[in-house]
């Protein structure tokens, strides 16, 4: 038996749309094996995942809250990867945004959230964007490898933040290593009270739509895609490749920064270490799962959030370790990449 990948003509649109469904089903099937290994009955365990994430109003809103930062980091990675700027630094950019939010959030600029909140959002965007600009500049100036520089900057930023939290920003009231609480006008307005569902969700959805428009309908989006596909031809055709990469990096970092703003102003109200549960890294997986499509990022981040919140419920009821969510997300990514391959190739089995 020999397996061979053979190119095939592209699938029809609706068959292509079904690909992620196949990927998810396959991932569930395989993770079912892992759940079974723990001695748990598999179907009820899966049912608990969905019940715990979608089964009640509260659970559903928790899922959307969880989805918000992942959607934004997913978009950050999507935009960067479309230009082949390999931004693995969304985690650090998120923390930059969070730091900016924590800082502007304690400044008494205004008593109205209609002024304070937009200022914080802009500051968080700029902070994340500036951080991403640095590795992009290294890339265009010295051809420094962006995977390495963006990844390493994550640690620089996180240690810088820890230094601040242990030093000047330590909360003077409690003495704990977190920043002082932000003023009331800096808090993100709630949606659908009671509960902690906040406007960060709307920001994330709006960002996805804006990214879609950016890529499809703007001149920058045209340049960005051209540079991503073929920088040499872009340069030959008169596009300023370096400037395009810098602009892309700024937007990408800014989006990740917004994720940090949302966590500070919508959830914690102060800055603390571990405010991101690796959202920056999940962003990479989400972007890949979404096949680098901004609107797909909405679905992919929603799916990740469902697994996240749902597996906690499952874990509580069945004793299956909560890490099963990592396994499921990882498997989904792998099956998705496989299925995407099958979009362009078919497996030919020949008996020899």
């Amino acid at each position, binding site marked *: 038996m020999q397996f061979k990948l053979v190119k095939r003509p592209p699938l029809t649109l609706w068959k292509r749309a079904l690909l992620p469904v196949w990927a998810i089903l396959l991932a569930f099937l395989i993770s079912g094996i892992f759940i079974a290994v723990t001695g748990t009955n598999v179907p009820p365990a899966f049912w608990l995942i969905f019940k715990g994430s979608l089964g009640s109003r509260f659970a559903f809103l928790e899922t959307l809250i969880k989805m918000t930062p992942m959607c934004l980091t997913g978009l950050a990675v999507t935009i960067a990867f479309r230009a082949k700027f390999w931004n693995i630094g969304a985690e650090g950019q998120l923390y930059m945004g969070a730091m900016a939010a924590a800082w502007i959030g304690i400044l008494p600029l205004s008593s109205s959230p209609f002024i304070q909140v937009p200022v914080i959002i802009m500051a968080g965007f700029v902070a994340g964007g500036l951080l991403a600009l640095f590795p992009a500049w290294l890339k265009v100036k010295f051809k420094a490898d962006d995977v390495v520089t963006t990844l390493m900057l994550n640690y620089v930023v996180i240690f810088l933040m820890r230094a601040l939290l242990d030093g000047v920003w330590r909360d003077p009231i409690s003495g704990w290593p977190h920043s002082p609480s932000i003023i009331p006008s800096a808090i993100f307005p709630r949606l659908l009270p009671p509960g902690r569902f906040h406007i960060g969700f709307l920001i994330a959805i709006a960002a996805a739509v804006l990214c879609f428009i950016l890529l499809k*309908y703007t001149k920058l989006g045209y340049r960005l895609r051209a540079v991503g*596909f073929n920088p040499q*031809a872009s340069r*030959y055709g*008169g596009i300023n490749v370096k400037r395009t990469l810098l602009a892309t990096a700024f937007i990408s970092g800014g989006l990740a920064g917004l994720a940090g703003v949302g966590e500070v102003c919508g959830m914690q109200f102060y800055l603390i270490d571990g405010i991101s549960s690796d959202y920056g890294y999940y962003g990479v997986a989400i972007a890949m799962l979404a096949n680098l499509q901004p609107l797909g990022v909405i679905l992919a981040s929603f799916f990740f959030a469902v697994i996240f919140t749902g597996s906690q419920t499952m874990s509580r009821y069945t004793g299956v370790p909560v890490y099963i969510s990592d396994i499921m997300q990882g498997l989904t990514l792998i099956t998705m990449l496989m299925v995407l391959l099958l979009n362009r190739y078919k497996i030919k089995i020949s008996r020899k």
Partner: protein
Amino acid sequence: MPENNSPHIPTTPLVEMRGICKQFLDVKAGDHVDLTIYPNEIVGLLGENGAGKTTLMKILFGLYQPDSGTIMVEGEEVSFRSPLDAIHHGIGMVHQHFNLVEHHSVVENIIIGDKKSSPRGIVDYRGAKNRIAELSERYGLEVDPSAEVWQLSVGEKQRVEILKALYRDVKLLILDEPTAVLTPQEVTKLFITLEQLVKHGLSIVFISHKLNEVMEVTNRSIILRRGKRIGEQKTSETTKEKLAAMMVGTDESFVLQKKSVEFQGEILKIDSITVKNDMGLVAVKNLSLTLNKGIILGIAGVSGNGQRELAEALGGVRHVENGRITMEGNEITNWSPANLVEAGMARIPEDRFRLGLVMEFNIAENLVMEKYQQPPFSRGLFMSWPKIMENAEKLIEEFDIRAPGARTTTHALSGGNIQKVLLARELSMDPTVVLAAQPTRGLDIGAVSFVHRLMEDEREKGKGILFISEDLDELLAVSDIIAVMYEGEIMGIVSAEEATKEKLGCLMMGIKDSSPLENQEEVRANAV
């Protein structure tokens, strides 16, 4: 069409392919093709690009498996699963792109994978070397066996590939467009070798779309078109015109009608520029050249003599170290591509896939690359897609781009149509100077004559055209003046009427033949 009036006494054919079919996606590269090769003959395999010549031979060489059809070698039916099987049956192939290990010696490259050269697991270098020396002697394939491949010229590399096949005692040698990379002198040498090989009992399949060569070297030719066998012609009983007609399917004459339109004044002046290559070595040395309005200035030269670097420097993607380039009196040295476009320079790069177009973009997106910033193709921050599509549809019509629509991804197009997209993009900018580097390389005859016609049109409009090519026939047919580049310098400038292939060939090899040199200044004076 005369069908198989074989000139041979009926002996057992060396190779017989019958009813070979091969389909790639929706393209039929082989459609019930029959091919018979007898011992001691040179068979030309003729056809336009994409006619299925290479595919058919790759099937014979075991690289592809046919969908249906049979192959017989010396009367025995065979089925090749890999080139190794083919070699065992005495079939060797030299590909268009060489498969040599650059940092290994010639001997190592030749014996690579040959088990007989290493009895009991120990390589017998001396035996191999002697055998190679003997083979090169016998067939006139001069090459230093201990040299490393990267030190060799293209012609020498090809000889190594031929030796590699001969070393394995092949009876049939398939050469896939062997002359595409050679100078005229090297071609002559290759042909002498081929005659020697046939004299020693080998048969040769000569894949080509150059009719002159086929007429010169083959005994008979088989013509393919769109995967089908169109017919067979005995070389002694046919003409180039007849073969060309069979290849393209119509009696289209591809000699350009040169109209003499007089324009005045120089339009592009290159004043002793120096340009370095990727390795940082000087590739263009103090080169000066003047292009006038209404002139097609051909630039000849063997590949790798600085033409690429010259084109890239003029195209704004390679730094000019020294000297000046002026266009209509304005200095444009080291201008960015965007500025050059604005100044009116149309640039058709040699590597249209890497530099010319974004292959993942659709046709419409590629066509506006140099003008999307201008109204009406964008407004403010936004692209105006309706106008962009309109532009694409207009140009698709005007440049006869064969595609399902403006939204078709560029890499789904055939080579000729890809080039038409690039030409449409460049020429629709209404340029004053057209810089065309190898604009017809790899295209079929139909697309080639289309490109030539476009260049003609631009000349008639009074544009200046710099036409870089390695194909002398093409340059002689298209250019008004031909400058020959050798090692980064202009070896000579001759007017197209006076130029002969021999004269140009000498200049291309760096031989300053006295006659063109004496005429050089005079011709230049006439041209300016």
